[in-house]
């Protein structure tokens, strides 16, 4: 990370940490939602951007984690800490299994298999009403209270989310910039050469898939704690697609891209939903527009524009 971007990141972090002192509750809650979406998009970016594996089923891990937490706290009488740990383990195990199967394919095959898998889980959440309560969803889920601190206030929950968010970004950035991350980028660009060099391409992809699934599980845990409610739509194709759009709109394969993309999409979603109910239609149009107009995302686009301005001055 260059010195300038480090200073920028630290300034942003301080501004975010102080947000509850200068913003109202509406904005604090909106910021919590954006942070959760940013963790989700960043985890997906490991697959899409660094691994070249476009998944359309990433919301499945959000759903698994959220449902495990919801079910354990409301039906099994488990404490939030135990339920949270079980939720992350659950999401990771599902990622292990899905990864084994989906990574038999790459490219469009991988996309179709991940989509089919997540749709199966989505259908299961609707149909398996004795556990998931079907279309009614599970409500009355308690928020966890780490170290005895209550997270029921908007500001408290926001700070907790922000702290987890920083950990998640650091962990994802460390993963991407490690030697393993370099090997992962190698499997994206030159899978056959990587195999010839003695790297186990599928193992590298599988580990990434599981790691990305784990962090999506973290996002799911925050999601269910924020909403205190879970519904099958949490793992709908719309949610997976929103994450993917955030990655692509922000610029896949960059660390800041998914954060920017998630922020843009959550702001758009919140402000548009306040006026019209046509979010899905708008999401569709944004998809088409991004692919046709800015296929490499907003951040590379801005960087290009900046380079052009600098170039013009010389």
């Amino acid at each position, binding site marked *: 990370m260059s010195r300038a971007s480090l200073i920028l990141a630290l300034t942003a972090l301080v501004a975010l940490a102080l947000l509850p002192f200068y913003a109202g509750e509406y904005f604090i809650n909106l910021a919590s939602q954006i942070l959760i979406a940013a963790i989700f998009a960043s985890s997906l970016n490991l697959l899409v951007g660094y691994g070249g594996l476009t998944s359309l089923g990433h919301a499945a891990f959000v759903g698994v984690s959220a449902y495990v937490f919801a079910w354990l706290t409301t039906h099994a009488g488990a404490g939030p800490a135990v339920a949270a740990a079980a939720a992350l383990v659950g999401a990771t195990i599902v990622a292990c299994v899905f990864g084994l199967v989906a990574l038999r*394919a790459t490219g469009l095959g991988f996309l179709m298999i991940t*989509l089919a898998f997540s749709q199966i889980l989505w259908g299961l959440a609707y149909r398996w009403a004795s556990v998931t309560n079907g279309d009614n969803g599970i409500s009355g889920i308690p928020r966890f209270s780490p170290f005895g601190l209550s997270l029921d206030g908007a500001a408290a929950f926001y700070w907790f989310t922000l702290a987890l968010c920083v950990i998640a970004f650091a962990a994802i950035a460390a993963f991407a910039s490690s030697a393993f991350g370099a090997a992962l980028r190698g499997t994206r660009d030159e899978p056959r050469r990587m195999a010839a060099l003695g790297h186990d391409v599928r193992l590298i992809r599988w580990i990434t898939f599981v790691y990305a699934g784990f962090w999506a599980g973290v996002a799911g845990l925050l999601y269910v704690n924020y909403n205190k409610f879970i519904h099958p739509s949490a793992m709908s194709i*719309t949610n997976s697609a929103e994450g993917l759009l955030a990655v692509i709109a922000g610029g896949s394969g960059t660390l800041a891209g998914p954060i920017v993309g998630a922020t843009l999409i959550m702001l758009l979603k919140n402000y548009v939903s306040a006026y019209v109910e046509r979010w899905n239609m708008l999401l569709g149009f944004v998809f088409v527009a991004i692919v046709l107009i800015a296929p490499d995302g907003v951040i590379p686009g801005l960087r290009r524009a900046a380079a052009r301005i600098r170039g013009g001055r010389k």
Partner: protein
Amino acid sequence: MQFWIIQFLNSLALGGLLFLLSSGFSLIFGLMRLANLTHGAFFMVGAYIGASLLRQRVVGMDLWLAALLAGIALAALGGLLERLVLRRLAGNSLGQVLVTLGVAFILSDACLLVWGGDPIPVPTPRALARPIFFAGLAFPTYRLVVIVVSVVVAVGLHALLERTRIGAMIRAGVDDMPIARAVGIRVSRLFTAVFCLGAGLAGAAGVLGGPIFSAYPGLDADMLPLALIVVILGGVGSLAGAFVGSFIIGAIYTFGSTLFPDLAYFILFLPMIVVIAYRPEGLFGRIAA
């Protein structure tokens, strides 16, 4: 006995509808390397068009005419999508998938806007509403008709692909696109033709599925994964694969829903996992997805 006969016919009818849907998806994928995620939305739009036409009591309107009209409408829509948008992204298969997904969202929300959120039941044609009695057992006529139609379409598509000039060109495009271009086949026209055909079949299938499923929001999200699983199972670009895959999934889904109603979706995992693990190119596929 009666129960099992009805379940058996239900599973075959679902398989037939899945074939009408997934054969187009599979041909499009095989020829154009394009996973058309609007396919579920095409089916749903077809179902809604059918529901509107049949409930309006238009003079002379029957199910077959409605299916034909919806098929033509969806073929035109598909052709426009291919010509105006997908063509501009030729070679960028990821961009194409994302655009089809975006269009699927747009169509699905447009249906909600036009037809509202309540399911619209589609009446079974009066002549086919009464079951056929044979050997003291009742056979639901409409299911039988759907099965016959899908088999007729399968035979027709097979003849189209294997016996006609255009079919030979499509097969050449699926097997080896650069050589097909090199010998002078207008592959881009084939793209439009196959895309129209696939979209039209999906639309007509939606009309035929109306009396069974009725038209409701989310029908697209219910049908698309089934079609995906059929194609993953049968192998992309293979008509035989789509046919066999459709009836396997139709049977698993129908009997799964009856025997384990909670876990019907989950059971769909099993054939997928087995096929992907042991034969990633699908049962009848020659190319890996």
